[in-house]
């Protein structure tokens, strides 16, 4: 009977894998999106033993270890790939992309949120905000601009030309860099990440104005992964059918009178 549950476990794991692949595919065009994939693990691993032949059995030597056996498979972790997405030119003054590490910081409703989606706009009061209306944080707090005519240096410094034709430094985009392996960045939805850890990574980034970072989900890769899921699921299904046939024989033929 164990085989039935094992093949069911394998099918569920593949189904869960497909949930993430389908989410990656749905977000193929989402700016700043970072793809997810599941990592599986064997589950409830047991040691298998066999009895020594009677003549070899001594005191404490009745069982011989054969190896380990997993009783099922489960999803261990969902891993987000923070690989750089492609840079797409938009020509909009308030579009920014990050090359390299780091996240833009915005003031969410309850906490600071981190995002790679640098598509910003101005609200009625001239605050630089995200599409959701969250203020974008500079080193001096929320950034305020006179107009959309703004120029960004690659280190994130923002400049505007005032009425007298002088170039003024407004603020600098506050880019948070994390050690991605250590920081527990969690997906918050709407392209934001949250973490309780403070940014502490080494700053290696470049701010590029007039560009947006596209999704790092890639059509070819997701389709290939989907084919693997489809075939693994089918293999598990075949095993389930085989077990069903074995059980059918055991129940209906073994005990039947000839």
């Amino acid at each position, binding site marked *: 009977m164990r085989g039935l549950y094992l093949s069911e*476990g394998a*099918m*569920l*794991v*593949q*189904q*869960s894998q*497909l*949930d*993430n*692949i*389908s*989410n990656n*595919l*749905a*977000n*193929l*065009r*989402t*700016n700043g*999106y970072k793809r*997810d994939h*599941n990592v599986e*693990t064997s*589950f409830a691993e047991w040691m298998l033993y066999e009895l020594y032949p009677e003549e070899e059995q001594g005191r404490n030597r009745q069982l011989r270890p054969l190896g380990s056996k997993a009783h*099922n*498979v*489960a*999803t*261990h*972790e*969902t891993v987000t790939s923070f690989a750089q997405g492609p840079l797409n030119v*938009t*020509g909009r003054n308030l579009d920014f992309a990050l090359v390299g590490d780091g996240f833009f910081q915005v003031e969410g409703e309850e906490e600071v949120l981190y995002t790679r*989606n640098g598509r910003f*706009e*101005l*609200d*009625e009061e001239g605050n630089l905000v995200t*599409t959701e209306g969250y203020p974008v944080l500079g080193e001096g707090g929320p950034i305020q601009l006179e*107009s959309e005519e703004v120029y960004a240096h690659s280190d994130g410094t923002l400049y505007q030309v005032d009425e007298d034709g002088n170039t003024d430094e407004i603020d600098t985009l506050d880019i948070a860099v994390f050690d991605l392996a250590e920081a*527990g960045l*969690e*997906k*918050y*939805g*709407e*392209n934001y990440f949250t973490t309780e850890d403070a940014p502490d990574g080494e700053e290696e980034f470049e701010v590029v104005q007039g560009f947006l970072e596209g999704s790092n989900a890639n*059509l070819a890769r*997701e*389709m290939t992964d*989907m084919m693997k*899921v*489809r075939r693994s*699921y*089918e293999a598990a*299904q075949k095993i*389930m*059918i085989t077990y*069903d046939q074995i059980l059918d024989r055991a129940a209906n033929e073994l005990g039947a009178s000839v």
Partner: protein
Amino acid sequence: MSRSFYNAFSGIAAYQRSLQQIGDNLANLNTNAYKRSEVSFTELLYRDIQERGYSVDPAPDGPVPFSGKGTHMYPVTKIFDQGYLQETERPLDLAIEGDGFFRINREDGTEAYTRRGSFYVDADGNIVTDRGDYLDVDFDLDGIYVNTVAIGPNGQVSGVNEAGERVDLGEIPLYIFQNNGGLSKEEGGLFEETDTSGAPEEFVPGTGEAGTLRQFYLEGSNVDLAAEMVELIANQRALEGNTRSMITADELKALTLLVRG
């Protein structure tokens, strides 16, 4: 139904809408002063997959496996970039080089704003749009030969009257908004003021950011054919990818049913 179905469905719905928008832009490749719309997408929320009934075995104190809920298209953004200028040789064709808008008074007494500067004269000498709405100016062209009308970059209008003298008639003002993106789009290239756009500010052409007027020119559409084709291809392929994931989600269900087929 599995999560994958809904993820695929959200993708198909979003990419269908974006393709319609790209179609709109392409259809208006030659519409005067047309402002293209830009589409963008966002992801939806994430959920712990154990709640969905999947077996999980995360590391102690480690992150729990999760999956997303698909995508969603943001409201479209109008891009107000300058369109290219086309020469027309009509004296009442006006292009704005800059950020300003003309103010239009409609039949029902409401105001609207446009950059489509193709004007005509009605029987009473009023300057009107092709839909018969009035350009908001404090003069008319009654008794002026239309072919003699001269409009300067600063909006000053003059023309030759029946006595054969050139007379100064008045000026055409321009209006600018704090946030063009907040304007509400109406039919016929018209826009209406909203709370998000802010109130219009009047400018004499050539001052502030309003820009200057160019007589005998019209502003073309700001749709870029090549850029739209790239968007079209990318969105269509994304749509197809989501169709495939819906088919795969369906195949998994079918395989499950086939266990006792």
